[in-house]
């Protein structure tokens, strides 16, 4: 298991007690989502659709790279990785 930091966007911070980051141990991006789903009720439904795929208005970035350009949800993680959840925001 790798110890990674997950950056939580402002619109979803209410699901994690207001934190901007949470620490998770997992081997893959999918594993992170499972852990987040278990720990924080309601969060994953905002990020993923019923099939467990990221919604079309949410991207997951490992460091600066979109996981779509890596191995998607199967992307392997290493200690110290930063996974950012970045949804579209529309305010102006």
């Amino acid at each position: 298991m790798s110890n990674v930091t997950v950056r939580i966007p402002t619109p979803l911070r209410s699901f994690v007690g207001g934190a901007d980051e949470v620490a998770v141990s997992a081997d893959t991006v999918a594993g992170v989502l499972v852990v987040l789903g278990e720990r924080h009720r309601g969060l994953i439904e905002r990020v993923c659709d019923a099939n467990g795929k990221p919604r079309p208005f949410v991207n997951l970035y490992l460091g600066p790279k979109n996981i779509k350009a890596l191995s998607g949800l199967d992307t392997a993680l290493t200690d110290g990785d930063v996974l950012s959840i970045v949804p579209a925001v529309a305010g102006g």
Partner: protein
Amino acid sequence: MSGVSGKDKRLAELRARIPEIEPTEAVALQARGAHLIDVREADEIAQGSPPGALRLGRGFLELRVEDAVKDKDATVLVTCAGGVRSLFAAEALTQLGYTDVRSIKGGFNKWKNGGLPVEVPRSLTAEQRERYGRHLLMPEVGEKGQLRLLDSKVLLVGAGGLGSPVALYLAAAGVGTIGLIDFDVVDRSNLQRQIVHTDERVGTPKVESARKTLLALNPSIKVNIHETRLDSSNVEEIFAGYEVVVDGSDNFATRYLVNDACVKLRVPNVHGSIFRFEGQVSVFWPNYPKRRGPCYRCVYPEPPPPELAPSCAEAGVLGVLPGVVGLLEAVETVKVLLGIGDPLVGRLVHYDALPARFTELSLDPDPDCKYCREGAVFPGFVDYETFCTNPGVAP
């Protein structure tokens, strides 16, 4: 008393050292890639100058020439009015290390009388020189860049939190035509962040309020106002003629219209969006000449349904935040207009104000994007308004 003046003695020395060429020879050399520098003063150049000449002015020649001509072994031809100042200038260039410098005999007078091509360069007025003086000092902008800004046409979608700082700074920078589209009126609750408006204008249309402020700041620019809500029936007509669109809208429906119209019209879409303490900035420009960039739909193919879109509701925003994000949009706009630096094409800057953290994320074009993929037939505009106000419809 000597019969020869110091000036004549000095000129004789220079003529012995600096090769002099005929204007016709200069034209031929210029056609083969030689640099031609016109060292006359601005008022002389305003009457005409050889086409393609670098107009550097004798007074600032040594300070500016190395930005204009980087190769010290390039052939450099120097001209003035009569062929005298150009000799002094040519010597100064050799002292800077230029190895092949030649002075044009008879200067611009002989050039013009010989029937060689002449262009009357556009130049800034004295008032413009004063106003934009700090731009003129930078080689990346200079007179050419300032004239480019004065000629440019930028449309700001939204005269609100993001639109305010963008509008103010683009007006100040001398962007010659600024279009503003917004259907709303100024509300007192806007003034916590929408700094282009004023308390006394509460209740008046935002586009009119913004125009007053911009013209007070810079009366020489043109401000076109479009007091309407952007939709699929008017987006193309409103966007036509603008070379950059700055998205400062506050809802997904407009953001997708902005994207789709920019893709269709091949216009860069300078994007900024905010929520409470965080913001995103990018330049969506699939046709950027230097690399293939994504469009907004490559990154976010569809908007969220209303129940998952916090921005559809009143979510709150730190009043200063649109200042930071809007000014990043303004900087990107000026870079795009001037063709300088590396715009945020294929990159997204994410700003989180609370930890004071800027993160750069890379954005890839989606090869299957319905709107911007190679050879795509434009699928049409979508009015998401209906969908946004109808929570029963799924994406």
